[in-house]
């Protein structure tokens, strides 16, 4: 058995993996050890000393490296052995290992899909809170709990979106701060950042909540569609999260008959009197718009 210790990063893994492939160490003989793991009882330190200088350089399609790098962001016990097995098979000429229909490839693509989805979740469900105008530090802060290590690679999106506005995103593991010009990534996340992001002094959420309640159509209640598209684990960090159960029970309690929001049906209505024939009204001087 070979223990392969490395620093836990993709670059570190790549170096070690390259050496092991050149030495011809097959996947089932390797235990990957990152800095946080302690070694197994019977591990022995690998012997990189006899690396044969004559081995031909490793030829791997560039696209595979990109796929592996992306899949390495997937959090799973033992995330590295699948990557090595695929690298091994492709190095042996078995390119099917990269394809979604393959036994290993399907695992790889499942992880890639989860990573893409989780990056998309970051872009979609993260919520920034504006900070008071005179406060020092970032203008916007957000707390997010991603299921995979996607913050570093996916947070550049917000720099494109928010221009020179400064912002900070903190997660339980890492954090990123945009100072208007550059991204600063930190792992582990500084506790000061976590404090800022978790306790925003934001009082301006009422408008968004009013919109959310009003744009919902209670006559079309569809809980399962909601939960597939917006997984429940995100609700607790969304300002609209606490509203969801409330709106659902209101809809069930009778509002399913028509689509109007309860907040609107409570108010008195106003019919518009037609002052002239319709043709003239369209082009003419009828002025219902004066009523504000």
């Amino acid at each position: 058995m070979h223990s392969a210790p490395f620093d836990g990063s993709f670059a570190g893994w790549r170096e070690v993996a390259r050496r092991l492939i050149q030495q011809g160490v097959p996947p089932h003989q390797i235990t990957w050890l990152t800095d946080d793991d302690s070694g197994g009882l019977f591990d022995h330190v690998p012997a990189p000393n006899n690396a044969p200088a004559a081995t031909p350089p490793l030829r791997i399609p560039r696209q595979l490296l990109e796929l592996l790098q992306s899949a390495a962001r997937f959090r799973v016990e033992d995330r590295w052995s699948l990557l090595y097995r695929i690298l091994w098979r492709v190095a042996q000429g078995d390119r099917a290992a990269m394809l979604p229909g393959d036994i290993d490839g399907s695992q790889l693509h499942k992880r890639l899909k989860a990573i893409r989805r989780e990056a998309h979740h970051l872009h979609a469900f993260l919520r920034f809170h504006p900070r008071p105008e005179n406060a020092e530090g970032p203008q916007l802060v957000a707390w997010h709990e991603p299921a995979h290590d996607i913050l570093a690679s996916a947070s550049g999106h917000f720099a494109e979106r928010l221009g020179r506005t400064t912002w900070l995103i903190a997660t339980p593991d890492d954090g990123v701060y945009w100072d208007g010009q550059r991204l600063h990534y930190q792992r582990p996340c500084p506790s000061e950042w976590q404090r800022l992001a978790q306790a925003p002094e934001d009082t301006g959420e009422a408008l968004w909540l009013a919109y959310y309640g009003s744009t919902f159509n209670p006559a079309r209640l569809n809980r399962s569609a909601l939960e597939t598209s917006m997984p429940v684990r995100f609700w607790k960090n969304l300002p609209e999260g606490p509203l969801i159960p409330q709106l659902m029970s209101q809809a069930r309690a009778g509002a399913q008959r028509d689509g109007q929001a309860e907040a609107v049906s409570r108010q008195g209505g106003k019919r518009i009197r037609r002052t002239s024939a319709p043709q003239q009204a369209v082009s003419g001087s009828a002025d219902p718009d004066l009523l504000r």
Partner: protein
Amino acid sequence: MQLIEKLTVLADAAKYDASCASSGAPNRSSKGKSGIGSTNGMGICHSFTPDGRCVALLKILLTNFCLYDCQYCVNRRSSDVPRARFTPEEVVTLTLDFYKRNCISGLFLSSGIIRSADYTMEQLVRVAKLLREEHEFRGYIHLKTIPDADPLLIAEAGRYADRLSVNIELPTESSLIRLAPEKQVRTIKQAMHSIHQGESEARAELRAPRFAPAGQSTQMIIGADATDDSTILHTAASLYGNYRLRRVYYSAFSPIPQSPNTVPFEAPPLLREHRLYQADFLLRGYGFEVGELLSGPGNLALDIDPKLAWALNNREHFPVDLNRAEPAMIARVPGIGVLSAKRLVALRRQKRIRFEDLTRLRCALEKAKPFIVTQDYRPLQASRESLLLRQQLSETPAQMALW
């Protein structure tokens, strides 16, 4: 009236428009620039409401005062709803605030018809212009186009908006005459034509000013009249053909408060809307013709999806050998989508396709099984009658609605 009260009324008034797409815009970025907003072609759904619909844009009306009396519409002039009107500045404030909070990717602005079609259109354009020019907003903007508005106003709207839309509302002219007396098919189509022309001109010249780069869409209300799915799909297909629409949205008629007697009191089954979307998808993405999905007048089946229905009616094309068939034919197999078809074609360059490969590609095997042949599998049901297969494959009947 407070801003929050206006928002409550005008979001409620706008929700019957199904579209919330924020996709199709060109790459725009604010990195290192003043102003905010970016688009990259992919839409983002920032939230979902308990009806399962996505919230990608701030979807509101500028005002729900309206001179028209369209029977299916909650904002018709004879409707007894609270009325409100935003100022353009208020819409701008809301858009920018929600955008910074990452609650939305842009604005979808529509309006009741006030004073005149031109005046209303001018107001909509003004909001878009304020956002783009004064606030350097680069997010997504979708503007509703008022059918009778001056083509020059439509051209101006196209310069600021990513998407324009004119609602066809009802699938036939006779329904429109009966239910929306102030609207005319002719002017609706004229507006679609103006937008289509704007798009073509912008495409033809490299340096031409941009024009609604995410194209135009429309919406049809389903179940407010007696029109069948065949007519609806033929109308949709002709709109796709004539005006290069990106999307036709189907919105199941949602009963409205104080509904007039001219429209039904009951909503059509939501499943009907779903089947129409599936059929629409087959028209746009799979090369199906309307005539293949529905050979005569009538509705799509509710118990099975339209692709399965087609396969059951055309058993002579099946079973399909996945190791030999054309990619387009593989995509016509029920339970196998365009993406899986592509993946199968890539995989069969490396090896012979076996049944377990389909499991890994996560095809809907129960549906696909009777229609495919692989290296190690032939369907037992290949000879089974379509009627029996249909019973076996139809989705379990839904419980009757309580209301």
